[in-house]
């Protein structure tokens, strides 16, 4: 039982569910308490001990079903009848070795157990990649004693007796069945123990890869990664906010409450401090020159929007487009397509964009929307202005008003200021200019940003 539990926990871990040693002990107690009597109850019980949220419950359920399935060596009915006929013709051949006997007797339980034992002996739980399937199948076959089948076949087909020949053929058939069973088993084990290795490796790769090198088909995974990051940030953010809630002593309220104690202020009341509500205005370039990146930048903005409601997002190429409503109305992929369509297409014009920004966020009649000393402005773009007027004067204005202006450039530093890139002209009016070409860099940047603006 111990071994089963250990293997099972390994399988659970490979399904992206963290199981600490304390939890393994707990799972052990649960096992003892519930036993193997009812599969359903055992599943519920272990799920309650190990899975911590809805997501984990689902993967746990998959893992449990995979791990505790006993499908090996089941006879397909139609084959069985055929075999019966052949057997009658062949007469009584019992086989010499234990394995052959089992196979011929079709002892499903014994075979299944033998295979599992062999699998454990060769350490199947370490299987990680699909490329290892072959070697593990072979190892299991060998461990089960497949060599003996070969010997028996050789012995039988040595002579000229037709019955022996037929028996040899039958044994070949048996070996084939065994092989396919073992392969099926290994396949299943891989799906249990190696379930998420590929995913994990892929995620690691994606976080560090240049945004421009990431392909469209990875979009879903990227969304998942980005969402996780954004979630983590929002958790940190909400914590910071709470800490500032205690403010000045509310003297009147304190006195009134403490009259009963002779005016000695035992119970104090605090005027809650107005919570500093930082705003983020994010402007994202979606023009042709950064089209490789913009999809992911928008994705990042979208995910941030999910967790930080106070983010004000824009997309632009030749003019500024408010994408807040688009992000609210559509699901992620659609939202990004719509944003790209609405904002993209034109050639980049930072001058026009800044003028629009001035109109919408510096001189807006609704003062709440305007950039003020609590606002952080993030600009995501390559600063390639097609040799137009950069309108640095507006950026300067923004710089003077906002708490922070941050420019994230997806191009490598070396190509800044080459050609029509105006990075150097904008640089003096930004608190921070940074290269950001991988998701990891983007994440670090935003993390720093949040730390500063919410501290």
């Amino acid at each position, binding site marked *: 039982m111990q071994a089963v539990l250990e293997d099972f926990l390994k399988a659970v871990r490979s399904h992206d569910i*963290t199981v*600490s040693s*304390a*939890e393994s002990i*707990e799972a052990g*107690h*649960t096992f003892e*308490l*519930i036993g193997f009597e*009812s599969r*359903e*109850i055992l599943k*519920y*019980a272990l*799920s*309650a*001990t190990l*899975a*911590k*949220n*809805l997501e984990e*419950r689902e993967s746990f359920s998959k893992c449990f079903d995979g791990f505790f399935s006993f499908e090996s060596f089941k006879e397909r009915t139609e084959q069985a009848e055929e075999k019966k006929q052949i057997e009658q013709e062949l007469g009584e051949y019992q086989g010499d070795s234990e394995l052959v006997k089992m196979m011929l007797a079709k002892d499903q339980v014994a075979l299944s157990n033998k295979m599992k034992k062999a699998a454990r002996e060769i350490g199947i739980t370490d299987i990680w990649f699909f490329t290892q399937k072959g070697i593990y199948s072979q190892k299991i076959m060998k461990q089960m004693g497949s060599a003996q089948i070969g010997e028996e076949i050789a012995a039988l087909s040595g002579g000229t007796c037709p019955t022996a020949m037929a028996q040899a053929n039958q044994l070949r058939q048996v070996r084939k069945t065994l092989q396919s069973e073992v392969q099926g088993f290994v396949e299943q084990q891989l799906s249990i123990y190696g379930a998420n290795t590929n995913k994990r490796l892929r995620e690691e790769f994606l976080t560090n890869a240049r945004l421009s090198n990431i392909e469209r088909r990875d979009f879903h995974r990227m969304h998942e990664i980005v969402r996780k990051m954004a979630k983590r940030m929002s*958790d940190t953010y*909400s*914590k910071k906010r*709470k800490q500032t809630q205690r403010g000045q002593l509310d003297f009147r309220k304190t006195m009134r409450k403490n009259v*009963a*104690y*002779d005016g*000695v202020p*035992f*119970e104090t009341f605090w005027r809650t401090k107005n919570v500093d509500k930082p705003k983020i205005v994010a402007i994202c370039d979606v023009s042709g020159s950064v089209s490789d990146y913009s999809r992911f930048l928008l994705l990042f903005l979208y995910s941030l929007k999910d967790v930080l409601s106070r983010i004000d997002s824009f997309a632009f190429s030749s003019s500024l487009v408010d994408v807040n409503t688009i992000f609210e109305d559509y699901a992620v992929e659609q939202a990004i397509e719509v944003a790209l369509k609405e904002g993209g297409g034109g050639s980049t014009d930072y001058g026009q964009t800044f003028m629009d920004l001035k109109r919408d966020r510096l001189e807006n009649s609704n003062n709440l929307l305007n950039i003020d000393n609590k606002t952080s402005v993030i600009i995501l773009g390559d600063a390639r202005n097609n040799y137009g007027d950069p309108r640095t004067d507006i950026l300067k204005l923004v710089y003077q008003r906002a708490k922070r202006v941050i420019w994230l450039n997806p191009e490598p530093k070396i190509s800044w200021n080459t050609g029509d890139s105006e990075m150097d002209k904008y640089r003096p009016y930004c608190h921070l200019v940074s290269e950001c070409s991988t998701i990891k860099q983007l994440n670090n940047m935003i993390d720093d940003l949040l730390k500063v603006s919410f501290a």
Partner: protein
Amino acid sequence: MKNMYSHRFQSVEEIQDEFEKGGYICSKEIATCLYIAYNLQKPMMVEGPAGVGKTEMAKTTAEILGVPLIRLQCYEGLDESKALYEWKYGKQLLYTQLLKEKLNDFMGDAETMEESMAVLHSKEDLFFSEDFLEPRPLFKALKEKAGCVLLIDEVDKSDHEFEAFLLEILSEFQVSIPEIGTLTADVKPFVFLTSNNNREMSDALKRRCLHLNVPYPEADLERRILNSRVPELSENLQKNLVDFIHKLRDMDLKKAPSISETIDWARVLVLLHAEELDKEFVETTLNTVLKFEDDIEAVNEQLDSLLESVHSAE
């Protein structure tokens, strides 16, 4: 010592039966979770939408075990003084005032400062004893001699600090009070934590709990629940009602109706002697089930087709 953990709940089925007798119909999953939580004496974290009977589960457990239910409602800003204990400042003050006059007798013939201090030192703990302690829910739960069911409701609404404080209690079932010492529970309380998933709880807290997710019930289970709660309702009406509610849950509503709303509505039906679920009736009583004006409007628009599909399913 006799306590609530002695010889009860031998199997999952037994729990299902006992709870059914107590008026709480639980699925096998819920029963299993209760069973291990009870036997391993672990806290149970119950998640799920509002009104599916999370709190009711704790209440029924307390009833069945015959122990008191102690409830702690969490909210933002909840701290130790509200959750664990507080000194009765008023009483302390009042006593000092009253005792002022007795002070001379009390000090007796202590002449010097040192002597007076010595006399005082020998008595000082009086004011910081349990007599002056205002017990709050957690303190009460630990003091309960025969055990109790402790319900920590909506734990996701509490602050991070309070969550950290809960950790000590949930793992050791003991708590330290600086002025008195460490208080350990004689019998571990059966702890329920409920959460509406307003925020993710910390891993440390999650690790210490068993997890149970209570979704909206299947139609079959919901009918059984109705049967036990509102037995006066006719079978036909009951079926229509549950079907209708399930249709509502499939719609995109701000707040989908829970079991508690279903039960409320059933009671209204019985009270008004309704024979069947007709349009007029639904229109007038829909506000028992739906809590938002927008939702009611949205449902009213589709009422005809909804009712038709419910009645045609018979």
